[in-house]
């Protein structure tokens, strides 16, 4: 399910399936996309931030076109205890690899992988901070 911003329209709440993972997409070439994500974050229930949210930064292939500081995005990831993935959608190989990663994460968040839960993402992140 794709949305340009949150909150989702409430009229369709009863038709919507359970949401297992929220991926916030930030285009490094658009300051607006970062602002949009920041305001949308306020509409996400706190329980999602236990591993069911991740940030996907696109357009990183073109360093010379960036309008956003990568530090700002990393700080966002830290503040919301959620992983930040960087990718370049214009390159087919990276596009496919990123899609596979997201599907893998989704599988874990939906509880399809025995022995691994969404909470593992959170503890993985904390571990790298302490190092």
């Amino acid at each position, binding site marked *: 399910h794709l949305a340009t911003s949150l909150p989702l329209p409430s009229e369709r709440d009863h038709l919507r399936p359970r949401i297992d993972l929220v991926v916030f997409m930030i285009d490094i*070439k*658009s*300051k*607006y*996309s970062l*602002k949009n994500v920041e305001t949308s974050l306020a509409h996400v229930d706190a329980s999602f931030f236990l591993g069911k949210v991740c940030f996907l930064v696109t357009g990183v292939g073109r*360093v*010379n*076109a*960036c*309008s*956003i*500081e990568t*530090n*700002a995005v990393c700080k966002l990831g830290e503040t919301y205890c959620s992983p930040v993935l960087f990718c370049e959608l214009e390159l087919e190989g990276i596009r496919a690899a990123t899609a596979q990663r997201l599907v893998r994460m989704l599988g874990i968040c939906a509880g399809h992988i025995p022995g691994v839960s969404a909470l593992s993402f959170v503890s993985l992140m904390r571990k790298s901070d302490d190092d």
Partner: protein
Amino acid sequence: EKADPQKTAFLLRKAWTLYSVTPLYGFRRARLRDYARLLGAFIAAEKQKGLAVEVGVELDIKVALSSLADIRGSELDQAALLVQLSSRSRGSSRNSEDKPVWWGWFCSVFGDELSENVPEHFTCLPLFLSHGAESYTALVGSWFQKTFDCCFRRLAISPLNLSWMVAMWAGCKLDRAASAVELVFSVPRLAQPLDISYAIHPEDAKALWDTVQKTPGEITQEEVDVFMDCLYAHFHRHFKIHLSAAKLVKISTAIASAHCDGIVKILHSQYLPGVLMLLTELAISQIQ
């Protein structure tokens, strides 16, 4: 250090194309005349090979290399190096003057970050600026690359860096009436390209920056963000367009103008060192 305004006047009001240059190996300041002769011979030889730089007119290219002692930041910086190509048409009288056709200069203003870590026999002049025909730039560039084992790369300027420049330069104090602060945006993903030009009265821009900047002489990313957000919000209020979703491609102030393709024009001699310091930093980060 203040540069002598007379000597550096030719640097102002010209559109300079920017490059980053890796350190030069085996460059000796005492051999400038030799280098000029060798470069002149190289250009003449390339012309003989048929790589004509000017079609139709027979031109002799004269090369001059000189040092611009005033253009440096600290004592650790190398003095700037100027390369000038002049033409004298054959068949004209002996008294004919040389006409300058191309300028290129290497400089380093507070480029300590690079020069600190460089081994012996290397000269650090990370910023290169050229003005004139691209064919001459290619010839001069390839001679320097062959002779001093260095590498030239076009220096592009990201929208992030352009917004730093406009915030910094719009906030500068100017004694006389200044020109408008202008930002040019390019709107992506349209069938026909669309450019939006946003002009702001220089006094309004400076007033805005003065309310944003907390410590004079210091600028933070947060302050630049607030400055730009105010400009975007103002524009959105009037035109319902989110400029933050478009690409900032060019900025123009009374101090200097800069284009994302790596083209700058410096308009005010007083701020020449400051502008060069920022450009040196960009060149160094591209090299590293």
